[in-house]
């Protein structure tokens, strides 16, 4: 027994050492081959992926909740920088903003009234009363809402045509992104948790699609398919153009033997790396504290045996709701960070394969239930995802090199782009089958 344990812990140590060697090695190879910009670009997205994986790991690894709508929470978080950091559109608030706000309040009031009616109304009258309240509420909502939207969207549609934001610092958008995602998670968790585990998966699939659809279509909010461009960068990060014009910076870059263009792009990326790294470290610290606290033990007890945990007096549904909200908030935070890295919000870019299922692969490969595992999975899978785009066509070229030119060859070459999906699917299935505890297993 004790021998077993030593070999297991030695095994764990080996895994951690390997990971600690391989990840920096990949980064250095990329730096040498592709230059510092490529390497740092992958690292920055890798850090955001790691945060996303941490959030999903909270839900899956700690509590066994299957969230298939991660893309929605990321998109909702991504709305926050638009609302916070964009300058307000001149005259939009007076033209229709007030109406829109009033309409949203009316909508919320209608839902609240419906809930109250549902609780209070006696027996059968509910079946008529609740839908009546909802339908009337919806009609009133549309009557106030539609003229407001038209007025806002009519303001210089090619450049703005939306409400704009509040013109505040971008960093403030990060907690707001988390709060928005947490609100959506509360609503969805309240309905779907406590039922069969599949129902949460299906409900989150729905909320994910709907949030993305709202962002794509509500032009007054997010400019829809016209995208929001030029979202200000978060606090310490400057613009390349500005620092390239700075004489002191050019001198210092020359002192390091760098030309000002490379030096400025690298500096910007490094500052982002610092910001994201700080957030990631803070989240890991918090997650580790939580995991090893009595609360974390209770969570795992619930995950491993809901019935016995319930018999011990734990409110399983409440705890599930709590952790579902926490995990979604982390995803919203990462979504806001993602948009402040890109500087633009492209609602049509929120693809569930890329923003939901890829995150799942990260969590499973890294090791569900292990925070460090999620970080490693996030960075590693993001690296492979980027690289598969390059390697896929190269491998196809090799495979088809000896083939005579023709339909089959060109078809195969064209379909190399789909290799990533296949690889990710196979990785997920194989990991679940043969190594369900992942690269860094939970102890």
């Amino acid at each position, binding site marked *: 027994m004790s021998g077993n344990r030593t070999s297991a812990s030695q095994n764990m140590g080996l895994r951690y050492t390997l990971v600690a060697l391989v990840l920096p090695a990949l980064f250095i190879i990329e730096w040498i081959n592709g230059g510092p910009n490529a390497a740092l670009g992958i690292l920055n997205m890798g850090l955001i992926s790691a945060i996303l994986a941490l959030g999903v790991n909270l839900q899956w690894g700690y509590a066994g909740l299957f969230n298939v709508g991660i893309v929605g929470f990321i998109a909702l978080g991504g709305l926050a920088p638009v609302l916070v950091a964009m300058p307000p559109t001149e005259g939009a608030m007076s033209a229709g903003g007030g109406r829109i706000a009033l309409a949203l309040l009316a909508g919320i009031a209608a839902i609240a009234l419906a809930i109250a009616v549902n609780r209070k109304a006696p027996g059968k009258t509910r079946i008529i009363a609740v839908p009546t309240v909802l339908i009337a509420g919806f009609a009133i909502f549309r009557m106030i809402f539609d003229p407001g939207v038209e007025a806002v969207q009519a303001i210089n549609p090619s450049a703005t045509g939306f409400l704009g934001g509040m013109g505040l610092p971008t960093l403030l958008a990060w907690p707001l992104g988390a709060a928005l995602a947490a609100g959506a998670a509360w609503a969805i968790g309240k309905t779907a948790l406590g039922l069969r*585990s599949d129902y949460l998966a299906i409900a989150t*699939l*729905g909320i994910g699609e709907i949030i993305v659809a709202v962002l794509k279509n509500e032009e007054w909010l997010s400019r829809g398919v016209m995208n929001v461009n030029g979202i200000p960068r978060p606090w310490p990060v400057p613009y390349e153009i500005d620092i390239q014009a700075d004489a002191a910076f050019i001198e210092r870059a020359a002192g390091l033997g760098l030309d000002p263009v490379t030096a400025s792009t690298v500096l910007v990326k490094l500052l982002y790396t610092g910001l994201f790294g700080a957030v990631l470290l803070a989240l890991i610290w918090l997650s580790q504290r939580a995991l090893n606290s009595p609360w974390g033990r209770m969570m795992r007890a619930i995950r491993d045996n809901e019935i016995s945990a319930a018999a011990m007096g734990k409110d399983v549904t409440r705890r599930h709701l709590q952790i579902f909200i926490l995990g979604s908030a982390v995803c919203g935070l990462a979504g806001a960070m993602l948009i402040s890295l890109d500087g633009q919000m492209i609602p049509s870019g929120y693809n569930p394969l890329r923003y939901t*299922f890829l995150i799942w692969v990260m969590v499973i490969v890294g090791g569900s239930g292990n925070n460090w595992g999620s970080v490693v999975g996030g960075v590693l899978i993001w690296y492979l995802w980027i690289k598969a785009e390059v390697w896929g066509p190269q491998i196809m070229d090799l495979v088809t090199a000896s083939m005579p030119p023709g339909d089959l060859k060109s078809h195969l070459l064209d379909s190399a782009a789909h290799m990533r999906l296949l690889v990710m*699917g196979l990785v997920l299935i194989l990991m679940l089958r043969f190594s369900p505890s992942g690269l860094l297993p939970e102890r």
Partner: protein
Amino acid sequence: MDFLNALVALTNYIIIPASTYGAQLALGALGVTLIYGILRFSNFAHGDTMAFGTGLAIIVTWGLQAMGVSLGPLPTAMLALPFAIAGTAVLVLVTDRLVYAHYRRVKAKPVTLVMVSVGVMFVMNAVTRFMIGVDDIKFADGARFVISARGFKEATGLAEPLAFRTTQLLTLVTAAIMVAALFWFLNRTRTGKSMRAFSDNEDLALLSGINPNQVVRVTWIIAAGLAVTAGTLYGLDKSFKAFNYFHLLLPIFAAAILGGLGSPLGAIAGGFIIAFSEVGVTYAWKKVATYMIPGFEAEGLLQLLSTEYKFAVSFVILIAVLLFKPTGLFKGKAV
């Protein structure tokens, strides 16, 4: 006259499209609900099984067209359907053997199986893209209309047109045949009865000597048949695009849950309710209202939701079911 025009408009824009779509959803939801009843998990790969089968049907259709085979007024794809079903059945059986069988052996939690099915979804999606690409493909041939809009106007002298496409008629007829055959199979044959017994109480079924492997195999084959038929009919009716089938997943699940997971009758009812709500909520009622209420001048289009939000309808229904009646209309399996 106005009343007749209103009726025609209603039929043309709501009843015919919604029934067709409802039939397609019902076939899809039947597959989901059967897999749920027997294998006890929500199969997220079902949408991509539909896409794969439809892709296969399109390729066989092209082959048949190249050989000069056609069905006259009916789309050639109907002739390709059996081949596509056979191919897809082989795929899902191999998938079951390689992937799902292990989790049944170790008696994994349902949520693990759901997750595995997400992995399968990925792979099937990729295979479909390899096979046929990501472009929009129209593969309906044969006669386009049973009743054409102009023909109807000339024949009746009404102001409103009524169009009834061949693919719509075909969908309704095929779905009716499939459902009848399925119910006959489940209620009258030995294998069908053993499937229902297995779904009701697994342990009892095993005690009475039902072969679980056979039940599972037959379930997959039937689910593949339903999925490919639903997918091909949907593709004929609209057009084929690999990614659209992923978006069908939500209405299909909503239909299955609304009817009660595990209940075939519920899946059919759910499919039609979802389809009629979706079409009804996103339809601009102005025309019908103008005919029905004399002297009525509508200000807007009288459209409750724009068509981009059509799946919000299935979502709202899904949430309402989860809130008020998680077992569904027809008393599905466990909550």
